[in-house]
């Protein structure tokens, strides 16, 4: 298909490189340097989608980030990209895109029936229509609304593309490379400041690319090119295109998304698709320019109605005509620039100017070119359904209330200009108190909260001369303060046309008897009548009107709709706009892909994975791993066809009968040194620590100030002023912070140092009746008899040339030892243990067997110390010292904590000795009681007791002390189980603790 709307010459596209692409299954051609939008328009395609609510036909309205309509679903290298703006997507070979929000296709869309049912979909129709009957919401309304809502469809596949994050610091961050951005960047760079210049489009230069101006002796475009190439050669300048600064956060932190590969057919190897920059800038210059404002008239959403600046951009940058019979509808001089461009390219436009006697330099130029200008004229309504084919125009009275002489004239596009709206989003995000500028009918930044300055048309300055002057000056000033260097540049002379004042008219009244829809928000289908209705129904605050009507809530953040909406509200309310105020701008300025936000932190990269030095031995020996915090721990070692249950039973039984070895490297370890170390321990643990002799370990429990158990573990006195503390795997980091808090802030007088030594030591627990035999063979020179190394004893040894710490402590309830060696020697130690243990039937055991062993012994762990229990609840009251004070002690006398029926840990055995009790089950007295059945407590941990070969659980239940021997029920509504149980002592095996001392 030939490009009927492409000019033979002109534009910045590369005409030597033809590119083929597909839209809605049909093949088209464009050129390198096109956007999807410009290439489609060149091919005469104006129908690209359907609107959100009424499914009205949608075309192109803008030429960049301002576009509210042209959202497409893209396929790139077999990956789906939803909600891509066609005006921003650069063309590449093989691009495939299709329309969204239409079914079965964009030409014939069944949803368009909404357009004729429009009176049933006024503002707030969700709230009014779907309220009754209530039960219908979940079953009927919501599923239908969900299906109808939204534009593109996200892929459910894993995104194969790579995204990355980058942190950067700079003196000046400049957002936008138009005249103000270039001038301020250049001035700052000359002073040696570290500058980042970000441009969201592929081409640098902003308005200079499309305006007819002279700077020095060059055209605006040439001047921009020169400045850019100079900036690019400077080592202190980073200059980025396709990069949108979308968020302004606290302390001058800004976030920018750089689209590195979106314009290429596929992402190159080792290159990310997009990169998110977190930039901390000493100063920020906002040079984001301005966006043309629409004029509001009947059917102003018809494809072919677009911003006059966009029409000019398609002409000047892409060599594309948006129509061959253009109508320009304007209230200011900007429309004439577009008209003149048409004329220069052999097309005769008609200009409708709302002003009575428009007169200025550029209007004179238009007149000299014989352009047909109709003053005091407006478009009443666009005609045509899928594309404009004519317009009803009329003469407007001087008071702008009445329209006369309505006639229909043929046209194929209507280019509208309702003056300019500064892009103040970033300034507003930064906390800037914006103010209303009467002269331009728009808000501009005012008092800064952070270190930001807005320049150029974003600041309401619309002449190039003034923009360059202020921007060179600001760039110089701000950088000078930072670098203390000044290298002044001279400000070039400027030739530009003088503008006359714009007309403050923006909304064409409805002619008598006509009921045209006049749209304000093109993406969310909010019409003038919707705002009127909202105000009639009593909504006053602009924030409420916004939420009720969804005005400005679409993905374009109301870039083209906000101000017209405010004007309308202020007109109806008889207030001035500044009293109405604008709604809050929030990041992101334009949509950012989830992939870019997530970056590389996906899957296994979302958190670090910590592995013990013995990890690869475990792996080689068929360990099945489990995540324990960030650690990977063997859950069980699979033999043959065993499942988890069988393997863990075998491993646990072997510990009870022979000897097992478990990797306990993950336990938190803290090295404590200093003359006051014992005093510190005495204050953080609930039991007494001052008299612990050197070479002895002690079990301790520490509380939070509110009396809740924080952690438990053993601490060993290595030498006079040196202790080795262990914590649980999960609480290791918290315990260290806790100790540091008290040492640094509460008791700075204590002379103690603490440091994490978790990673310095590899640990192996050897447990079982034969563990002493294994230990003796590992350390033949040591006396490891019950007398030589008693329970809770400690000694140091030499393990075949490697220094080792030996602790006689037990988590399994069996005779057990823990050996620590320096991490590098961990694997050596493990292999020695396995080798020597062979004669004693040693087997490695994982966390599942470890749990089984501790549960049937009644040792409390994380599932009981769950941040909600006090020592008594865990039967740890024997560890509470009555003689000394410690952290949290005062809380233990709270009434609830000393209640006679206080909850306590107990053992639970099913009466049938067969049915396992799901963890989390409720314990109740009466299984058939009416709901809600009063619960006594919950099952915290379950196992299969290898000692008795039946299920056993721990539970924390009310008045647990007096419940022993009672027959109750365990209820698991989730698993739909009711299990009759007997409450027993939590110490199910070896209640007197004889084995650990044997």
């Amino acid at each position, binding site marked *: 298909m030939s490009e009927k709307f492409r000019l033979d010459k002109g534009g910045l596209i590369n005409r030597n490189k033809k590119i083929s692409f597909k839209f809605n299954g049909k093949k088209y051609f464009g050129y390198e340097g096109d956007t999807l939008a410009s290439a489609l328009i060149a091919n005469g395609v104006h129908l690209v989608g359907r609107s959100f609510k009424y499914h009205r036909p949608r075309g192109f309205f803008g030429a960049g980030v301002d576009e509210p309509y042209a959202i497409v679903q893209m396929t790139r290298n077999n990956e789906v990209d939803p909600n891509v703006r066609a005006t921003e997507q650069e063309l590449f070979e093989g691009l495939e895109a299709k329309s969204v929000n239409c079914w079965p296709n964009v030409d014939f869309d069944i949803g368009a029936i909404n357009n004729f049912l429009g009176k049933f979909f006024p503002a707030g129709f969700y709230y009014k229509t779907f309220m009754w009957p209530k039960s219908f919401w979940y079953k009927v309304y919501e599923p239908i609304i969900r299906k109808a809502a939204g534009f593109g469809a996200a892929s459910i596949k894993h995104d194969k593309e790579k995204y990355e994050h980058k942190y950067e610091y700079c003196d000046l961050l400049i957002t936008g490379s138009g005249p103000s951005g270039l001038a301020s960047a250049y001035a700052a760079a000359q002073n040696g400041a570290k500058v980042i210049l970000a441009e969201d489009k592929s081409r640098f230069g902003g308005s200079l690319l499309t305006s007819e101006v002279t700077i020095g002796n060059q055209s605006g475009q040439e001047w921009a090119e020169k400045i850019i190439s100079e900036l690019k050669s400077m080592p202190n300048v980073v200059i980025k295109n396709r990069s949108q600064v979308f968020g302004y956060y606290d302390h001058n932190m800004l976030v920018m998304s750089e689209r590195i590969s979106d314009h290429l057919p596929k992402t190159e190897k080792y290159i990310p698709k997009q990169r998110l920059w*977190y930039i901390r800038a000493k100063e920020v210059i906002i040079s984001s320019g301005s966006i043309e404002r629409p004029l509001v008239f009947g059917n102003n959403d018809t494809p072919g109605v677009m911003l006059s600046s966009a029409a000019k951009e398609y002409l000047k940058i892409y060599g594309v005509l948006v129509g061959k019979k253009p109508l320009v509808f304007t209230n200011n001089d900007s429309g004439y620039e577009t008209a003149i461009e048409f004329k220069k390219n052999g097309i005769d436009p008609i200009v409708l100017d709302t002003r009575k006697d428009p007169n200025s330099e550029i209007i004179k130029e238009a007149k000299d070119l014989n352009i047909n200008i109709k003053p005091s004229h407006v478009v009443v309504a666009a005609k045509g359904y899928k594309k404009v084919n004519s317009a009803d125009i009329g003469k407007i009275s001087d008071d702008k209330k009445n329209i006369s002489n309505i006639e229909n004239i043929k046209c194929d596009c209507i280019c509208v200009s309702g003056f300019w709206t500064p892009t103040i989003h970033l300034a507003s995000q930064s906390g800037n108190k914006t103010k209303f500028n009467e002269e331009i009918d728009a808000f501009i930044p005012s008092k800064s909260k952070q270190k930001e300055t807005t320049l150029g048309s974003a600041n309401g300055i619309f002449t190039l001369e003034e923009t360059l002057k202020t921007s060179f000056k600001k760039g110089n000033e701000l950088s000078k303060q930072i670098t203390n260097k000044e290298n002044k540049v001279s400000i070039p002379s400027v030739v530009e046309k003088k503008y006359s004042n714009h007309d403050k008219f923006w909304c064409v009244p409805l002619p008598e008897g006509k009921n045209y829809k006049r749209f304000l928000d093109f993406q969310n289908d909010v019409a003038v009548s919707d705002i009127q209705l909202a105000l009639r129904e009593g909504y006053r605050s602009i924030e409420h009107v916004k939420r009720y009507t969804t005005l400005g809530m679409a993905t374009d953040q109301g870039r083209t709709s906000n101000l017209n909406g405010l004007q309308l509200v202020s007109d109806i309310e008889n207030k001035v706009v500044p009293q109405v105020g604008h709604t809050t701008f929030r990041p992101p300025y334009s949509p950012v892909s989830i992939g870019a936000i997530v970056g590389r932190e996906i899957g296994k990269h979302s958190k670090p994975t910590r592995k013990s030095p013995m990890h690869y031995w475990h792996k080689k020996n068929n360990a099945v791993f489990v995540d324990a915090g960030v650690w990977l721990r063997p859950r069980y070692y699979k033999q043959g066809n065993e499942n988890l249950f069988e393997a863990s039973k075998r491993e646990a039984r072997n510990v009870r009968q022979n000897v097992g070895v478990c990797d306990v490297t993950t336990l938190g370890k803290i090295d404590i040194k200093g003359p006051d170390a014992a005093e510190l321990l005495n204050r953080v643990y609930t039991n007494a620590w001052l008299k612990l002799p050197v070479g002895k370990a002690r079990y301790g429990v520490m509380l939070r100030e509110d009396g809740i158990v924080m952690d438990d573990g053993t601490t060993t006195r290595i030498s006079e002023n040196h202790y080795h503390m262990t914590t649980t795997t999960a609480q290791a980091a918290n315990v260290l*912070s806790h100790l*540091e808090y008290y040492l640094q802030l509460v008791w700075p007088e204590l002379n103690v140092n603490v440091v994490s030594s978790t990673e310095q030591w590899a640990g192996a627990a050897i447990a079982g009746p034969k563990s002493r035999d294994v230990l003796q063979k590992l350390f033949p020179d040591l006396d490891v008899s019950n007398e030589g190394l008693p329970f809770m004893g400690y000694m140091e040894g030499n393990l075949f040339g490697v220094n080792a710490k030996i602790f006689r402590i037990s988590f399994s309830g069996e005779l057990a030892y823990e050996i620590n060696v320096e991490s590098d020697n961990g694997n050596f130690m493990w292999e020695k243990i396995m080798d020597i243990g062979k004669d004693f039937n040693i087997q490695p055991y994982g966390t599942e067997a470890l749990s089984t062993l501790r549960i049937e012994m009644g040792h409390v762990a994380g599932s009981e110390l769950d941040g909600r229990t006090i020592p008594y609840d865990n039967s740890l009251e024997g560890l509470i010292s009555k003689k000394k004070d410690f952290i949290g002690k005062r809380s233990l006398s709270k009434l609830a904590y000393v209640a006679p029926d206080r909850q306590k840990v107990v053992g639970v055995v099913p009466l049938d000795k067969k049915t396992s009790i799901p963890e989390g089950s409720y314990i109740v007295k009466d299984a058939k009681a009416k709901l809600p059945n009063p619960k006594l407590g919950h099952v915290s941990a379950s196992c299969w007791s290898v000692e008795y070969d039946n299920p056993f659980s721990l539970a924390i239940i009310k008045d647990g002390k007096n419940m022993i021997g009672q027959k109750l029920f365990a209820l698991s509504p989730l698993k739909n189980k009711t299990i009759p149980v007997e409450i027993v002592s939590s110490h199910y095996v070896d209640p007197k603790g004889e084995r650990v001392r044997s």
Partner: protein
Amino acid sequence: MLHIKCPHCGLRSQNEFSYGGDATVKRPELNKEVSDKDWDNFVYLRKSPVGKHLELWQHISGCRQWIKVERDTLTHEIFKTLKANEEV
């Protein structure tokens, strides 16, 4: 993201720190009688002021020191940062 000047390390991003609450709360001395009310105030009750707030942060991914930060809770302005043993 806040930019916090650690008195030991210099300006660092907020993600290196963890928040530690009101820095003006004093723990009752050990081994001293404390009324229920005073103890409850110490454990549970905190003010939530609008404006200046002296608070604790720990430079957890840095020097691990607890520091005091005087911050405006409304604007996030940081007026000064202090070492643990310094007073405003």
